[in-house]
């Protein structure tokens, strides 16, 4: 591997490792849809403008003297205070920063974290006497030693509600083939079981779990991706693992890889189990984004026999001029997939899933297009806001070690707001320029516990 390629590989590894991805707080609501109405009484209410207030994770930049935080930001481009931080709760003791936000079916807010000392957090939310949102806590949850939290999903198995979390570092980032999926009591946050099956421990040909990142489930089957070791150098995955939720054991690995455009394993990162609760009447199937393969794959699922078909490539980023596909998000009629390179969000008809049938113009964001939210503006215009960076980097000129912009140029530090129908860019906030901070995540709204996930 020559130096240039090595540099590029390290860059991509870093990007992948620290990029997060999809959650299931909204969609998994197959089994928990009722909880939306149950726990968020304002869901059908006039929200008083709060539907444009995003819950975001910000990263302090060491050379600029800023601190990691959870914040609420006004994202209505029609508002005078567009881009303003309305409320902020600093988390100086959690470093690296919080990573992804989820709301549980009962309206509790969680974040995964890259910090080995604190890899899963419950965020406290409340309101003050004026009704304004308040963030009042970020409490670390005992993960039983599992490290580098990534995705969360709430799912009901045989009548019992569980919270599942992928830990890309498993029970120790020092393990070269680590990774685990935690099964937690959805009420108490206590770890019930650690699903762990290291490749080096299970023997040749046996199903394993390695560097799990994305997860999704349907019925008694869960799929998790094998992405990349958290140190960004030790190893890269190229498969997904099927887990039997009746026994919480891995039962199959499916390789999701074709061409290797950058010379490395495909690194499946996000996964979406397309299922009838998302698309009524659909034949279930699994969609997978591969970060290094630049592709989106489909794996059919025979629900009767509980068997998975051979993967079929649906989207080839090399052919289409895109790279590093990341997230799946959905609204009531469309599926959105973010591609970090060159910074674009593609959209597909929900009703046509699991096939990818374009449903409208691309949303051309900035390099690093990643997480997103959907909401109406004050005037009722439907918009999408896209967070455009994979990492949360400082300024290389300040000798900030987290700045690798000079390599990949996929860290714009912006959130761009677009008309949802046309993709027209309406406004943008540059968090580094305005707040001396990186923005790590925007995928939740404060309003009524609603969050957009795949």
């Amino acid at each position, binding site marked *: 591997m020559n130096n240039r390629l090595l540099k590029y590989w390290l860059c991509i590894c870093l990007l992948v490792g620290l990029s997060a991805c999809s959650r299931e707080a909204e969609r998994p609501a197959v089994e928990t849809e009722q909880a939306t109405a149950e726990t968020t*009484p304002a*869901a059908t209410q006039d929200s*008083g403008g709060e539907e444009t207030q995003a819950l975001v994770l910000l990263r302090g930049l060491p050379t600029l003297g800023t601190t990691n935080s959870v914040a609420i930001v006004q994202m209505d481009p029609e508002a005078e205070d567009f881009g303003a931080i309305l409320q902020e709760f600093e988390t100086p003791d959690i470093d690296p920063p919080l990573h992804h936000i989820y709301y549980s079916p*009962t309206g509790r807010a969680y974040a995964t974290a890259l910090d080995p000392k604190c890899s899963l957090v419950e965020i406290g939310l*409340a309101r003050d*006497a*004026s009704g304004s949102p308040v963030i009042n806590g970020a409490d670390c949850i005992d993960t039983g030693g599992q490290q580098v939290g990534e995705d969360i999903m709430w799912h009901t198995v045989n009548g019992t509600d569980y919270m599942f979390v992928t830990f890309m570092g498993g029970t120790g980032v020092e393990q070269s083939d680590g990774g685990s999926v935690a099964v937690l009591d959805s*009420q108490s946050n206590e770890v019930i079981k650690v699903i762990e099956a290291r490749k080096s421990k299970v023997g040749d040909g046996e199903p394993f779990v390695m560097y799990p990142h994305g997860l999704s489930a349907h019925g008694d089957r869960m799929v998790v991706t094998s992405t990349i070791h958290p140190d960004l150098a030790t190893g890269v995955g190229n498969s997904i693992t099927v887990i039997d939720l009746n026994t919480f054991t891995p039962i199959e690995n499916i390789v999701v890889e074709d061409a290797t455009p950058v010379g490395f394993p495909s690194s499946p990162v996000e996964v979406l189990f397309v299922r009838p609760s998302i698309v009524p009447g659909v034949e279930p199937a699994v969609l997978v984004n591969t970060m290094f393969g630049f592709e989106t794959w489909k794996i059919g699922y025979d629900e009767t026999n509980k068997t998975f078909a051979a993967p079929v490539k649906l989207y080839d980023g090399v052919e289409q001029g895109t790279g590093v596909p990341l997230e799946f998000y959905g609204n009531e009629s469309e599926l959105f997939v973010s591609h970090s390179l060159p910074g674009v969000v593609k959209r597909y008809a929900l009703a046509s899933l699991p096939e990818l049938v374009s449903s409208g113009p691309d949303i051309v964001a900035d390099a690093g297009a990643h997480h997103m939210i959907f909401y109406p503006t004050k005037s009722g215009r439907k918009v999408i806001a896209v967070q455009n960076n994979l990492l949360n980097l400082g300024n290389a000129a300040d000798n900030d070690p987290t700045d690798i912009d000079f390599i990949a140029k996929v860290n714009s530090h912006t959130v761009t707001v677009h008309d949802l129908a046309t993709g027209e860019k309406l406004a943008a906030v540059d968090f580094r320029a305005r707040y001396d901070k990186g923005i790590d995540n925007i995928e939740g709204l404060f309003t*009524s516990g609603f969050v957009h996930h795949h």
Partner: protein
Amino acid sequence: MANAGFGSIDKSIATLSLCGLMLIAVVYWFARYIEPKPTPLQGFTAPFVFGNFRVPTDNPLTQEAVELGRRLFYDRQLSGDNTVSCSTCHLQHLAFTDGRARSVGVSGKMLEFNSMSLANLMWGPQHFFWNGRVDSLEEQALDPIQHPDEMAQNLDDLIDELESDDVYPGLFKSAYGEISAENIARALASFERTLISADSKYDQYLRGELKLSAEEEMGRKLFMAHPDVKVSLRGGNCIDCHSQFLTSGFNAQFDGFSNNGLDAETLLDSGLQVATGQATDRGKFKVPTLRNIALTAPYMHDGRFSTLEQVLDHYNEGIRASDTLSPLIMEADNQPQNAANIRISLNLNEKEKRAIIVFLHTLTDHGFITDDEFSNPFDVDTKPDA
């Protein structure tokens, strides 16, 4: 010289007197016209999951306003004959209801409606009372005071009484400045906005502090589910109308008013039609909070049902058809589409009905009904309404 001297002294005295008078006038002016600066309510937090609420900008929550409102709420002076206070029909230990089918005020006549529970009033309501006839908590506060059968109080007389009271002038001055009908309403509304119930067993469940029992959980799921026989999902269909069951209703115009099948067409009461004038709103009444529902019998706008069992029986087998009957009720029958002898009924079995009732009991907030902050501030031996 002497005269001149005395004249000078006179002038000085006159000048001093004038200055003194001016000083008194200035002090009086300041005392009279300086705006009070009440203290923002301290330590107030409200649950995130209840959703957005807005306090009127001209009536922010302040300690002084809440204290004044609490005193007014429990004071019998607010009624024409000093026998009835707000708390007469809104007893804390009954989640601010009165246990009667229909309340009785100063006239001794049975009123038109059942007393509504007062809890979590900041969330939702744009239209108060069972028939939605007023559209703010402030306006609501003055309605029963003036109603001839409820409190029968002339507001001007009430203001005179309060102005001659030892305590109220100071309280009003601190909270709002002057004693007026508007400020009486503001103070009562402020106190009522602080009546937040957020610590029932179900609230604790939402916060992850405990688990529901198997029967409670069964009831919860039935409560939340609209029946769908295609996927073998049985449902109590409660959430379809009671989506705001933790708070106090809807904030979107006249959402949250429904005809739940209590009466046949010819017997329908006016209901929301009183507020809208629309015949299509006849028989529709406010869908109430279900918080503390186990404490607030009798049920329905006219208190016709004494128990939750009777309420469930109504939805299961007592629905009366009419032109404005909620389609959400008509659709939910837990039966296959081709089932014979379809009738409007949830068709729940006894176990299912019982589970829903058990779940409804998890909405009881014992801390709310014993919270000193909401209790009668008067010494019980003075002018109380315990």
